[in-house]
């Protein structure tokens, strides 16, 4: 089957999708009319209301191709006047790709760049064009690499492919977005692209799908049924147009190479894959480290800190490893992108175009005027009100207090077990006294257990509890040390946050913990390591 036939089939299927939308709406309208005819009055109004609720996402998400999450309100809009250099590069990339420049640039917090259009008339006529550009890309890419990324994105809109294929591509985009509007009900596989980006840590702070997706849960069962029909068709459509989509991705890669050069295009793919991992790690270890303590990094640093991590000499080896090993697996069966490793291989197999080292073009972040202010404003529009209301502290304080709060949370199950079994205020001392009195394993038995652990009996049951008991105890000890000012989490960009206990103390603590959670507990070594024993005069 040639490209034309394949594309035509995809077009037909896309038309089918809209037909399905019309059909569903028609059924709704028919039902409403019938109800009014047979049962006028309050009941009919109620049914009207329910039908309207059911129809709303169909109308909004698919028919007008304006799914709610694409309302253009996400991210930070930057004007031509405030960011002329960035705009110039974007325009240059679009021009080189043979397509028109976007009407709007919006900065986001994701490791992603995307061009979208508010297309009208079932996606056949162009509308307002929008570039979403993740600041982590600006932090991690050089100018040449950014050009390569933009080249790929604009490549989808250029004349590099047949007109019909372009419609297919837009169709896929529209269908995917429609499916996303039904996110709560949709099969997770279809949605992998999205959920992947919403890593746990980000979900906690960034304005996630809750704010953007249509709240369909209230509409209940009927709504879910309707959604299923669309999702099923969408999956079918996505699968049928897969081969066309794949070709387009590779064609877009060729545009990227033409615009930015072979080396920049290949290295941009490697760098983006590395950034994906580095950014997730950064969010987990640094940016959101203070959440447990209700703290945020200084304004602008939530997104700005990534650049410091990337610049840290102690992290270069890990980063080089990530660049060298791009992901080989397909991300999802519905993703149009071939595995990154495959795309890189194809690009690197091209002859040398002599455009040289992409590193010489300088960092992409330099395109941004007043980056601190911009990154601060980006926080305002992407983070939740709760996190924006949090106290701002410097990085070292953030990591220290954040880890302290996590430590306290980690010790909570053990505290709760102590309260349950012994009553009282559940201090470390109370627990150690209870251990000396032979009650330790009774306390341990009150810890929350896994299914396997609660099935076990005798010595095996104890083996399941021992590590839980040990880690809870360790956390209680560390909290005492920290609160007495004898220990602190030291933060560094090369090593996260590390508790500054001496090696010797650490070894002794391990042995003491081991003795304290033995079948016959011995708490003496542990007591010798507590603040009161270490500094009798002070505590």
């Amino acid at each position, binding site marked *: 089957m040639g490209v034309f036939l394949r594309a035509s089939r995809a077009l037909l299927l896309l038309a089918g999708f809209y037909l399905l939308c019309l059909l569903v709406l028609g059924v709704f309208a028919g039902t409403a009319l019938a109800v009014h005819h047979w049962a006028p009055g309050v009941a009919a109004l109620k049914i009207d209301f329910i039908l309207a609720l059911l129809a709303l996402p169909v109308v909004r998400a698919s028919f007008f191709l304006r799914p709610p999450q694409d309302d253009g309100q996400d991210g930070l809009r930057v004007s031509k006047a405030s960011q002329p250099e960035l705009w110039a590069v974007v325009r240059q990339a679009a021009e080189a790709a043979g397509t028109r420049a976007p009407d709007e640039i919006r900065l986001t917090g994701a490791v992603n760049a995307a061009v979208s259009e508010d297309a009208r008339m079932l996606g056949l006529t162009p509308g307002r064009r929008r570039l979403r550009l993740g600041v982590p890309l600006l932090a991690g890419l050089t100018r040449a690499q950014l050009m390569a990324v933009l080249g790929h994105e604009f490549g989808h809109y250029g004349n590099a492919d047949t007109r019909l294929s372009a419609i297919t591509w837009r169709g896929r985009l529209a269908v995917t977005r429609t499916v996303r509007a039904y996110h709560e009900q949709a099969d997770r596989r279809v949605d992998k692209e999205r959920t992947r980006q919403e890593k746990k840590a980000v979900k906690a702070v960034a304005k996630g799908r809750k704010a953007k997706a249509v709240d369909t849960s209230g509409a209940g069962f009927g709504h879910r049924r309707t959604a299923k029909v669309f999702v099923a068709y969408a999956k079918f459509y996505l699968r049928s147009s897969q081969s066309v989509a794949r070709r387009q991705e590779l064609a877009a890669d060729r545009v990227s190479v033409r615009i930015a050069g072979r080396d920049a295009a290949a290295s941009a793919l490697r760098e983006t894959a590395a950034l994906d991992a580095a950014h997730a790690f950064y969010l987990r270890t640094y940016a959101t480290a203070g959440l447990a303590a209700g703290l945020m990094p200084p304004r602008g640093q939530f997104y700005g800190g990534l650049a410091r991590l990337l610049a840290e000499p102690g992290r270069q080896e890990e980063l080089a490893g990530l660049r060298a090993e791009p992901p080989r697996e397909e991300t999802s069966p519905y993703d149009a992108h071939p595995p990154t490793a495959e795309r890189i291989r194809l690009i690197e197999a091209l002859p040398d175009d002599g455009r040289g080292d992409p590193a010489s073009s300088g960092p992409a972040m330099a395109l941004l005027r007043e980056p601190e202010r911009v990154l601060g404003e980006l926080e305002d529009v992407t983070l939740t009100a709760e996190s924006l209301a949090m106290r701002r502290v410097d990085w070292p304080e953030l990591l220290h207090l954040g880890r302290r709060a996590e430590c306290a949370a980690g010790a909570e199950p053990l505290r709760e077990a102590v309260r349950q079994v012994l009553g009282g205020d559940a201090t470390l001392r109370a627990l150690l006294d209870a251990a000396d009195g032979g009650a330790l394993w009774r306390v341990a038995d009150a810890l929350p257990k*896994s299914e*396997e*652990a609660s099935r*076990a*009996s*005798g*010595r*095996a049951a104890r*083996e*399941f509890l*021992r*590590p839980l008991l040990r880690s809870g105890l360790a956390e209680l000890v560390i909290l005492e040390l920290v609160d007495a000012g004898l220990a602190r989490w030291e933060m560094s960009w090369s090593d996260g946050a590390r508790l500054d206990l001496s090696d010797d103390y650490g070894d002794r603590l391990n042995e003491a913990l081991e003795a304290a959670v033995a*079948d016959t507990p011995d708490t003496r070594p542990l007591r010798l390591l507590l603040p009161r024993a270490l500094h009798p005069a002070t505590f």
Partner: protein
Amino acid sequence: MGRLLPLFVIAFLVYLWFRSRRGASAGTRSASPSALSEGAFALGFLPESAQNTERARRDAELDALSASVRAGEWEPAARAVAAAGRNWERRSEIVGEVAGVAAKDDAWLTAWETARPDDPDAAVVRAKSTVFLAWEVRGGARADSTSREQFEGFDRVLRRSRAEIERAKALNPEDPTPWITEVWAALGLGYSHEAMRELWAELTARAPHHYAAHYSALQYWCEKWRGSEALAWEFVEPAIAAAPPGTLLPALRLVLWYEHHDDDASEADYREAGLTSYVDAVLADIAMAPPTHLRLAEVRHLLAYFLVRQKRHAEALEQFRMVDGHVEALPWRRYTDPAAAYCAFRDTAVRKAR
């Protein structure tokens, strides 16, 4: 569709029932179970419900020991281990019996250790009980249905057992038992092949033809644990070649074959010439084994299984006669209901041998 659902469920249940019977029902298609059992009873065989699934043969001393340690008395166990002396096969059997109890509740063992610190016999029981405990924590399921918590506990407890194994070795340097215990730690912790060979050299220097030791080490060399079928053969053949007749070591070939092929063997595979000669070699070896050999019953069970598979029913029946009543042996122990599996094979032999 909705109306067909119960049909599907029933079909699926029937399929599951068939599958569970498949292994056990080799050749039992033609007669009803009650008729079979009647034949078996006429020959003096015990019903399924009367089969002991704790051990492979009758052993009154072990029964008594088990009862006494369960009751919290350590002295009978201490006396029994001491009485076994340098009968290493018996020593490891007694240690295994009481260590199995200690893996669940070790109060009696702690009492023994307190009463006689540095007793090598208590030390060897302690080490073995900890290895058993590790397996208890892991559970008997396959790796993919074992939780991370279970694996971590397994690993942690096995690591702890190593210190206890070393202590037992130091307290009685001649005793191979702690070395045999270490084979199971090696298997669980994934010792390198080199480390395993060193361990094996030390073990065989102390007990060259110990059946249980060989069985354990063969598990290590099997594909499902730390080796491959080729490595398992490399281990088994020299061991058999070096062993005098009557040590039962030729049965290792059957164990090896069972571990690597039984799951997807066809009827013809069981009757293939190689396997037939392995079975014959075991028959020849048991004929020369002392009737008091502690592993004889275990080997007869395995032999009986293969003889039924090879349709040598009369020969199988002879083996069944000698072991009926106690079924804790390969291959029955691999079935969810060992007694039922045993009886199904036994009854096949009874019926077809006539």
